[in-house]
Structure formats: C-alpha cells, structure tokens
C-alpha cells in the first residue's frame, strides 16, 4: 500500500522534472534557432494536406511554419488579448465575416503585394487589403433528385414561397455560414427584405434546425424535407466519404446554383490576413504569396473540395462537373459588416 503510493509520488516527481527539462531544452533550442527563419500561423483549417504545403514552403524558402489550430472565433479573441506581444504573424479563417471581425478589432494590417493583387480578384479581398481570400465555396440549394425537378428551383427568395412549406432543411443560425448568407441579403436588399426572407424560411422549415450541413443533405435523402441550404464542399466530402451510405446520399441529391438571373449565388471564402503586430512580416507575406500562387492554390482548394480563389487555377474535375455559376458580386467585407445585424434578425424571427 505504502509502496504504490511512493511509486506514484516518485512518478509524479519524475514527470515534473521531465516537463521542466522539456521546457528548458525547448527554450535552449529556441536560442539556437534564433537564426532559423520562421512564420507563425493561427489557423482554423485542419487538413492534413495543408501540412504538406507548409513543408513544401519550408523546402523552397527555408522558412519554418509554426501552426496553432483552433476555432477561428477563439483564435481572434486570443489574438486580441495578446495584443502587440502576439507571436502570430498570420491568421487564416474559414469565413470572410470573421476576417472582417479581426480587421475591425484592429488585429490585421494592409499588405501591398503585386503578386497577391495579381492572384486574388478584387471582390475576394478586403477593400483595404487587410485580408485575402484563398479558397471559395458557394452556399447553394441541394435538392432531392427523386422528388424535385431542378426546373422548379430559381432563387433563394423563392424558398420562402408557401409551396415549399415543410420542405426546407437548414442548420442553426449560430452557424457563421448562415449568418454570412443573411448578411449578404442585407447588403443586397436591405434589412427589411432580409428579415422577410429569414421569416419565410422559418415558416417553411421541415424541422427545427439541427445538425451540420451534411446532416441536412442526409435528411433530404431520408425524406424529412426536399431542399437543403448548404455549402458546396460538403457534397464533395460526402462523395469521398469512407461510408458507402454517405456516398449514396450525395449521389441522390443535386446541386442547384440559385439566383443565376439576378444577384448570383452566395459565395464565401477562407482567407488569410497579416497580423498587425507580426514579428516576421516578410516571411509572412512570402507565405501569403505562396498560398495564392498556382502551385499551392490547387492543393489548398482541393483539400476541402473548394474553388481556388486564383482565377488562373482550374477547379477540380468534380467541381467542374457541377458547372460554372454566377456569384454574388458584393465585396465580401460586407459579410462582416452586417454580421451582428444578421444574428439579431435570426433571433427576432426565431430561427433557432
């Protein structure tokens, strides 16, 4: 009895010293590596292929990429709290609204780079060049191939038509993709119209919003509703799922790009910004340029079945098979500007 306790105590002490040792050796290493060029990255992308890209970047430039992954909201908050002492040089998030939030909080700084300006179209980057889109996704209508003829579909606005009562599936309003969608409507049509739209969707919902985007597609195939509002890349992910049933689900739904004759389909980006207090500014810009370039764009976009932001780079074959589409032309900064208004509208109309 005594012995087990002593053993436990000893192992704790050993662990403690081990941890201390690790800490010390860590800092020594840092001193030794003072000359090693680095760039520090806060990102909410979690794809294993990203790591390969960073390694390729290190190979080409000798600059090591350090990564902290997290949820973008929390990374932004962390960045804000760390203030000018932050170690982060770049912030990558999966939504323009969030990049805008970082900008408004004064966490980013403008980047003047010919390469970036060439590679990234104007509407996919910040007005003041504080952030740049890297990959593009559409938020589209997904329909049951069995029960819906795509000729019945036209616009987002049409989804509020009483003929779709009890047919619409969409996730919770706490999701940023829905917030950005509504923000784009506020930007295009004003608050009142946007609220009417949200109200109309709530009235047509097939069930209380629940689950993620994939769950919406699954619910369409399971017959809980006929239409789902979701991001394009989830269909790509489901088609490549390890679960054959999920592949079947994806095969049984069609993708429809709404508003082709009017305002265009809502798009959003994942993008990158240089932090205001970046300590490795030059390296950071090099990485931004690298990620916007032809070589990286393909892999960066395809990791998540997205469209490359760089127009010179072709999307993958799968995405091409969905056809080309007209997208909303608003500057994506607006998505951030109208975000809190969108959240409030959702609450007011009772979109859970």
């Amino acid at each position, binding site marked *: 009895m005594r012995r087990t306790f002593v053993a436990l105590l000893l192992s704790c002490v050993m662990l403690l010293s081990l*941890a201390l040792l690790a800490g010390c050796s860590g800092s020594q290493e840092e001193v030794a590596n003072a000359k090693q060029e680095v760039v520090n990255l806060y990102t909410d992308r979690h794809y294993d292929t990203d790591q390969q890209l960073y390694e390729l970047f290190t190979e080409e430039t000798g600059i090591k990429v350090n990564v902290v992954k997290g949820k973008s909201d929390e990374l932004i908050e962390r960045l804000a709290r760390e203030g000018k002492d932050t170690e982060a040089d770049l912030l990558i998030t999966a939504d323009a609204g969030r990049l805008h939030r970082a900008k408004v909080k004064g966490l980013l700084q403008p980047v003047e780079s010919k390469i970036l300006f060439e590679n990234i179209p104007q509407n996919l980057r910040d007005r003041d060049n504080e952030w740049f889109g890297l990959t593009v996704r559409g938020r589209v209508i997904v329909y049951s191939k069995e029960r819906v003829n795509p000729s019945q579909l036209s616009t987002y606005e049409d989804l509020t038509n009483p003929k779709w009562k009890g047919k619409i599936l969409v996730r919770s309003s706490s999701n940023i993709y829905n917030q950005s969608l509504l923000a784009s409507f506020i930007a295009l049509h004003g608050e009142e119209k946007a609220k009417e739209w949200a109200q109309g969707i709530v009235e047509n919902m097939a069930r209380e919003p*629940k689950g993620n985007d994939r769950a919406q597609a699954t619910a369409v195939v399971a017959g809980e509703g006929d239409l789902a509002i979701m991001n394009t890349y989830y269909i790509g992910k489901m088609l490549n799922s390890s679960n054959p049933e999920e592949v079947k689900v994806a095969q049984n739904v069609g993708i429809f790009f709404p508003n082709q004759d009017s305002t265009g389909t809502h798009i959003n980006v994942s993008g990158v910004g240089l932090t205001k207090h970046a300590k490795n500014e030059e390296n950071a810009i090099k990485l931004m340029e690298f990620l916007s370039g032809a070589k990286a764009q393909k892999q960066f976009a395809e990791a998540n079945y997205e469209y490359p932001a760089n127009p010179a780079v072709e999307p993958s074959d799968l995405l091409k098979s969905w056809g080309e589409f007209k997208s909303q032309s608003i500057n994506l900064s607006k998505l951030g500007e109208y975000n809190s208004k969108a959240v409030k509208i959702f609450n*007011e109309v009772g979109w859970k």
Partner: protein
Amino acid sequence: MLTIRHLKLNLNIWAVLSFIFILLVILPNLNIVLNVFNEPNENWNHIKEYLLKDYLVNSVILITFTGFFTIIIGTSLAWMISIYDFPLRAFFKWGLVLPLAIPPYIAAYTYQGLLNYTGVIQTFLRNSLNISVQQKYFDVMSPEGAIFIFTMFLFPYVYIITKSFLEKQSAALIENARVLGRNSFEIFLYVVLPVSRAAIVGGVSLVILEVLNDYGVVKYFGIPTFSTAIFKTWFAMGDLDSAVKLSAILMCLVFSLLMLEKFLRGRKKFSYTTAKYSPISRIKLEGIKGKLAFGYCLMIFSLGFLIPTLQLVHWAFLTYQSILSIRLLGLILNSLLVALFSSSVIVIIAIIIANNCRINENLLSKIYSKVTVIGYSIPGAVIAIGVIVFFVNFDKQLFWFYKMLNPNSSKLVLSTSIVMLIFAYTIRFLAIGYNSIEAGFEKIGTKFHEASRTLGMSVTRTFFKVDLQMLKPAILGGFLLVFVDILKELPLTLILRPFNFNTLATKSFEYANDEMIHEAAISSLIIILISAISIYYFYKVGDKED
C-alpha cells in the same frame, strides 16, 4: 500576546499555501467577473427580449432530467454492486465507470452516426430487410437525445462516489437495518439514500456542472442553452459584457442549487460510526433476480460503453489506412504527459486546501472551499480568456527577469508555453479533485486527527502519518477523475495550447468538427483506451486498499 498566539495558530504553512492557490484561482476570473457590473448594452436587451427564456428553459430541462436519471442509475448501480453478488459483478464494478472514458461530444457524434439514415442500423433495415423507418424515431438530435447522452456518459460520477461511500460507510447501518427486519428496498429508501446523500449530491453536482458547461453536444444537436448562448453572444455578437452576464446568471443558478441542498441537509453530518469499519457482507442473488441484476448492469454498460466503442472500432477499420502514422505517437505522448502532470498538480493543491479547511474551521476556509468550484462553473472558453489576460500581464511583469536570464528573450514566455495550459486545467478541474478529497476527509472525520494531535504530533506530521494514509483511496479517486477529464478536455486545450502542440482530443475534435467523424474514430478510441486502462488500474489499486 494573544494576537501573536492567534496568528501562529492560524498562519501555518497550510493556510498560507491555500491562500496563494485560491488567489491564483480567483485572479484570472476577476477581470471577467468585473464585467458583470458594466451597464447593460443594447445587445443585452436584445438577448433578454428574444433569447433568455429559451436558454433558461432548455438548460433547466437538461440539468433536471439528467440529474434525475443519473441519480437513479448511479445510486441503483452503486447499491446493487455493493450489497449483492451476481454474475460478473466483479467486472461491472469497474466496468460501469467506463462510460466516463468516452467524451460526451464523441458519444453524441457516434450515436448520431449509428442511428441516422446512413448509419449501420438504418442501412441494415433498408438494404437487407427493405424496411424504411420514420426518421423521428431514430432522431437523437433533440433535447431527449441530449439527456440520454448526458445520462449515459456522466452517471458514473454519481456511481463512483456513492459506491465508494456505501462500501466503506454503511455496513453497520445496513446490517442493523437487516437485523431489524427491513427488506432491501426499504433499506435502500430509508437508510442508504439519506445516509449517502452527501455523496450523491457531490456526484450529481459534478454531473450538473458538466451539463451546464457542455458545448459540443448541445451545439451539435442544435439546442440553445447557456453555454451555446455565451459563445454566441461573445463571438458572434462580439459582446464579452453580455456573455459574462450570461455566465453570471449561470453561476448563480449553480450556486443556488448547491446552497439549496446545503440548506435542506441542515446540520446533519455523517462520518464513521465506529473506528473499526468492516465491509458489507454481500447477499448472493440467485436465479431470476441474479439474471435481472446482471441484465440491468449489462444494458447500462452496453449503452454507455460497448455500443459506441464498437461503432468507433468499425469506423476505425474504414479509415485506419489514411490515419495511422507516426504523428499519432506524438499525440499520445502529449496527451499523456500533460494529463498526468496536471492531475498531479491539481490533486496536491486540492489536498492542501481541503486539509486547511478541515484544520482551520473558519469563515475564510469555508470561502476557500466554495472558490474551488468557480473554475468548474464557468465555461471553459471564458476561463481561457481570463487566463490569457492574466498570463500576458504576468509576463510583462516578469520581463526584466527573462531578460536577466537571456538577453534575447521575447516578452511572452509563460503565456506561449505549456504552463499556461496546465494552469488553466488547474482552475478548471480543481473542483473535481477537491470534491473527492473533501469527501474523503469528511468520511475520516476528525477523531483520528485529533487523537494524533493530542498525542503531540504537529499538524503537518499528523497529515503525513495519519490523514494521508487514510485518504489514499480518495486521492486516487480524485486523481483518476481529473486525469480522465483532462484527457478529454477540449475548449481550453484548443485555445491555450502552444504552437504545434496537439493532443488526441484536439485531433478528434478537428476531424469531428470538419464533419469527418469516421476519421475521428482512431484518436477517439485511443482516448477511450487510455482512460479505460487508467480506470482499471486505479480500481485495482483502490481495491487493494480495502
């Protein structure tokens, strides 16, 4: 003279250390709590008008039903395991703790994946038997489903604490009741429940706090509760003030529940009835009764552990080729080291504070014991932000010192290191360690301590020679709970980890968050395996103590 003597009595090493630890727990939360008193803004009015009622109702429903069901399942199992003998009892004794090894958010994803349209069950019915089912009967993504998940994966808190109490404590009472002719059910109702009330409440408060803090399950299921609301206001509305106000309401809710229980319990105190305690002599259940007991345990064990684990194993087979790699080893090592180290720190601090509370019974020490709960009743993300602010300031104060050691030192040393994460774990999980150690102390009572003091040993010597020896099972119990909790912990690890630091939990979450639940299976399984092994190991040690 008197004051010096007074000081000397109160100001021993225990009091000083406790004071320092408590201060460290409070400080990071202070700047958050201070925000509560800011003027309500426009957002707050919006929240009050449209959302608050929903949050309150949903949160109360979740904690009430989860609390109720965990008490029923937890105490009934604890009672059966300690009083009766039936097939496989020895296995269930620790096997029923295993659901704790599965993080609720993983369980939620797993059950949804199992039951939904593309899951094994519906696929089998559809493809092999050609039966299409109504989706609503297979829907776990509802408040009922959340209650199910919380109950099945949190009831072991009630079970562990109640069982260890019953085993050590109630033999004499139960045997007296038996001799006096009460049947088993009556004993359960009139003897066991009242006597083990403190233990049950201790367990259930942990359950309730876990439920109130849960973010993963309710977010995935789309149920608006306080924790989703806090995240939503803070991050989506960018309004920390209102988020903190919500946390404050949440804390009031928690504390009033705890106070209510204390009030109802009044001055009743239970400790060893005699110095010599003996284990209960168990009754062997024969025939159908034994089978029923076995069946009940098996059902709970299956729902809470076997089924989700098998499902994860199945998914692991589908994905292992793309997931297994050398990096996985690094993840395992990171998870283990950080969890072992942090739990040791937490248990040591908990012992110090609990011992201080016991020997210096005054208002201050009572406040201490309340403060330990703080970290557990504030959502993880809020703690994380408090801790970051605290460490960044701390680093600024220590900059001269860093420069002395290393002229090239950067300004942020501690706040970019693992120390910050361990510190945050300590704030968060101190309550768990403290709870089980306090219960341990309560069980021992003060007689032995007083005897030793009367015989001339100092407080500290008494602690090492007497108290610590008797406290070991409680210490190990606390260590186990904290260790497993840290292994599963998410929000703090996500926000506070240093560069390039990944654990099994963060990896599972990344996959699950990207809606790649199959890919999350392997790292989830490793978490479950390590937790299960530690539960087993600590159980064996705990058993030897008897």
